[in-house]
């Protein structure tokens, strides 16, 4: 009985494989990866959510472009800017606190449905609109995340590729530099830099941080290149007369792109936590600019009396980091050639039906 069942499962397995193979017939590697990624539910939800979050955050506030005295103002949809100081609201707050949030996200139970109100996330000590502050902080954090991601990805890939492709003394020198940087804990370098350049703006800080966070990626890329450069297709390209640059960028890099993308996404989620952590310690973005970490740091003692000053920035950090993490996970699964799609019940039923049909036909 058991034996018969085993044989049956083996056959079902074979037909499952057939389904999977059929699905990838005639598709390029990129298309296969894309399909796998789209099928990863958590990752897709994260993509949509993160995209809408970014849209929300970046369109909320006014953009001031150009000179300080007479800027060109691109109006945002929210009525306050993070520098505005409306009057502090005293009325209808629980426990005698001031500037409480007016957001009402519970649809029916309390009667008035969803509304934003005057100050959805409340107000800070001097009456600034907290929603505008959180939006500004999230803008900074997302900006820092992308800048660090892009710089670290470029540097890490290029240096890792050169080091792995050329080997020899180039590799030795580059990897020693990597060793030097990688042994100093990131938080230490970042604090040293952040303390002295934090007041120059978030973007400047992010660029500097990007110069010290590429090391892990470059090691990974080097490893990939070391193994890929021994493969036959590289020899073929070289025999065909391709230059080193062409081999690196056209032949090897596309094969290593999976490792790079995945590790960059994870790097980006680490970057957002790094930035908020630095700002929390006081070594990152400094006032008058706003960052999510700085907001939490400023109002951590207000938790018992005005918890909303603490909740909202934290929730935004978590939402962004969580989305990026899930996207990274989805990408990892999509690029992993060993990863087989989990067949749903419907697929399995199809497989069984196909098998039965074959048997009948036979």
């Amino acid at each position, binding site marked *: 009985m058991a034996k018969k069942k085993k044989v049956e499962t083996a056959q079902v397995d074979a037909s499952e494989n057939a389904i999977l193979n059929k699905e990838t017939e005639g598709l390029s590697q990129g298309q296969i990866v894309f399909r796998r990624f789209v099928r990863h539910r*958590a990752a897709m939800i994260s993509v949509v959510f993160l995209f809408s979050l970014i849209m929300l955050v970046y369109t909320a506030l006014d953009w001031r472009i150009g000179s300080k005295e007479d800027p060109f103002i691109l109006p945002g949809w929210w009525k306050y800017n993070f520098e505005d100081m409306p009057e502090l609201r005293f009325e209808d707050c629980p426990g005698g606190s001031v500037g409480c949030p007016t957001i009402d996200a519970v649809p029916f139970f309390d009667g008035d449905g969803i509304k934003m109100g005057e100050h959805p996330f409340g107000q800070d000590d001097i009456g600034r609109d907290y929603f505008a502050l959180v939006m500004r902080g999230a803008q900074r954090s997302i900006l820092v995340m992308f800048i660090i991601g892009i710089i670290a990805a470029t540097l890490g890939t290029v240096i890792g590729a050169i080091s792995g492709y050329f080997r020899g003394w180039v590799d030795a020198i580059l990897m*020693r*530099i990597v*060793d*030097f*940087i990688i*042994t*100093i*804990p*990131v*938080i*230490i*370098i970042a*604090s*040293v*830099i952040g*303390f*002295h*350049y934090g007041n120059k703006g978030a973007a400047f800080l992010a660029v500097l941080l990007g110069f010290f966070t590429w090391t892990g990626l470059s090691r990974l890329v080097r490893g990939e290149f070391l193994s890929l450069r021994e493969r036959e297709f590289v020899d073929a390209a070289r025999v065909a007369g391709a230059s080193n640059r062409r081999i690196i960028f056209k032949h090897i890099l596309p094969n290593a792109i999976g490792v790079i993308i995945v590790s960059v996404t994870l790097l980006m*989620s680490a970057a957002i*936590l790094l930035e*908020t*952590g630095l700002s*929390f*310690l006081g*070594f990152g973005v400094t006032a008058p600019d706003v960052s999510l*970490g700085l907001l*939490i*740091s400023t109002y*951590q003692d207000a*938790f*018992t009396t005005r918890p909303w000053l*603490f909740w909202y920035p*934290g929730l935004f*950090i*978590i939402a*962004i*980091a*969580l989305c990026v*993490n*899930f996207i990274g*996970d989805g990408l990892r699964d999509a690029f992993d050639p060993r990863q087989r799609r*989990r067949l749903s019940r419907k697929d399995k039923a199809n497989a069984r039906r196909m098998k039965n049909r074959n048997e009948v036909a036979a």
Partner: protein
Amino acid sequence: MRRIGALFIILFGSSFLLFNLSAISTDPIGELRLSDAPNKEQLILNLTRELRLDLPPPVRYFVWLRGVLGVFIGNPNFGLTREQEPVITAISGAIPVTIRLVIVATFVAIFLGIALGITSALRQYTRFDYGMTFFAFLLFSLPVFWIAVLLKQYLAIDFNDFLVNATISPPWIIGLSIASGFFWAAIFSGTRKRVLTIFFTVFLANSALLTLLSATKWFAYPRLGPITVALFGVGVAYGVTYLSVGLGSKAALKTSLLMAGIGTISYFPAQLLLNSNRPRLGLLILFIILIAVSIAGSFVFSKIDRGPIIRTSLITSVLIGAFILVDRLMQAWRPFVESDDVNYRPVATIGQSTIWLSEVPFWVRVLDQAMRLILPTLALALGGFASYIRFSRGTLLDVLNQDYIRTARAKGLNERTVIMRHAFRNTMIPMSTILVGDVASIVSGAIITERIFGWQGMGTLFNKAIVSFDLNLLMGVSIFLSSLAILSNLIADLLYSVLDPRIRVGAGK
């Protein structure tokens, strides 16, 4: 040997890099320049001479390095801090504090992380697995300073308030029981009937236990007593035997149960040992006795295959010893809570130990330090915990796909042996190197945690160094952290080659 040479070169390079980086970006006299003190010029001159600011940073680095190289002649000189205290003194005062924090956090993270990760891998694609994955990602995305504030509020302030009454309200009992019911039912997933049975059993047991604890005000005055120790002992004996050799091995089970019995009996003499004038020695003696008895017991009961049985009973006896220790700590609860310095607020949010205004017994002091450890440890452990869940899950899944696992199953070994002996051990090889390599990153993670909880450790020193432009102190701290990172990497590599004979360290590139 070559590796140790490379190690020093790396250490030299990274310290050179950091020194110049921070020397260039700091401006210690900037503040003075803006001041309007009458003897401004003199002050600037003094400071310049004191910090050797007349030399360019690379040259200053070598001045500093000359002092540090004194390590080899037994007379290291890391320079003075800005408060004219030797850096070595400052750091050696801070290291034990940080180590205490980090070690406990690491162990908590490792044990829980691996346990949950492995359970999650064995239940791949179940709700439990998805739940754990989501949980791990959530923990990855939580900023430690944010979670720390929540912990302070809910685990310290609110819990202290709760302890005043120490009664759990019915909604809480029901909520907690439902949560734990879900948790266990998800772990032992199976048919619907089985899941429901487990859910309701756990739910009822849990509510009964919580009601009992609430009615007896156990949380206000926690205690275990010999009977509970005995019950725990039997439970541990069964559990450890099941995991390590399987309940089929009568010899192992007998020895473990014997150990549980002996542990319970030794509860009373143990009190004498622990209450003596030298409690540390007493504790040591207790554990030595337990271990000796467990080895002797295994020799008596087992004729063949002694190794696994000795191991089993050893683990059992150490765990029972730990229970007796916990019980002793709980006995110190009442004097601890009622002392003036604690004043019924046992979970503190700031500082690494209570400043005792009066003389207190040894165990009260230990209990105080343990209570102070809880919050920062939790905050620090969460990050590592999440990555261990993910990593052990991934590794175990990889291992389970290997051919030797199929072989083990094919030759008819039972599932427990396959998992614990063949899969789990091979999972531990990559895990162990990750664990060792993580030590340095956890220590640097402690920088933020210490700041939040007001511990006077490496993190606080580092903070001070940056804010007061104290280059010597900064270099001292970072040299310590970098050497820790390099050393732990070296150990990880060596460990890997010891555990996995296929890998030889330093054999070609």
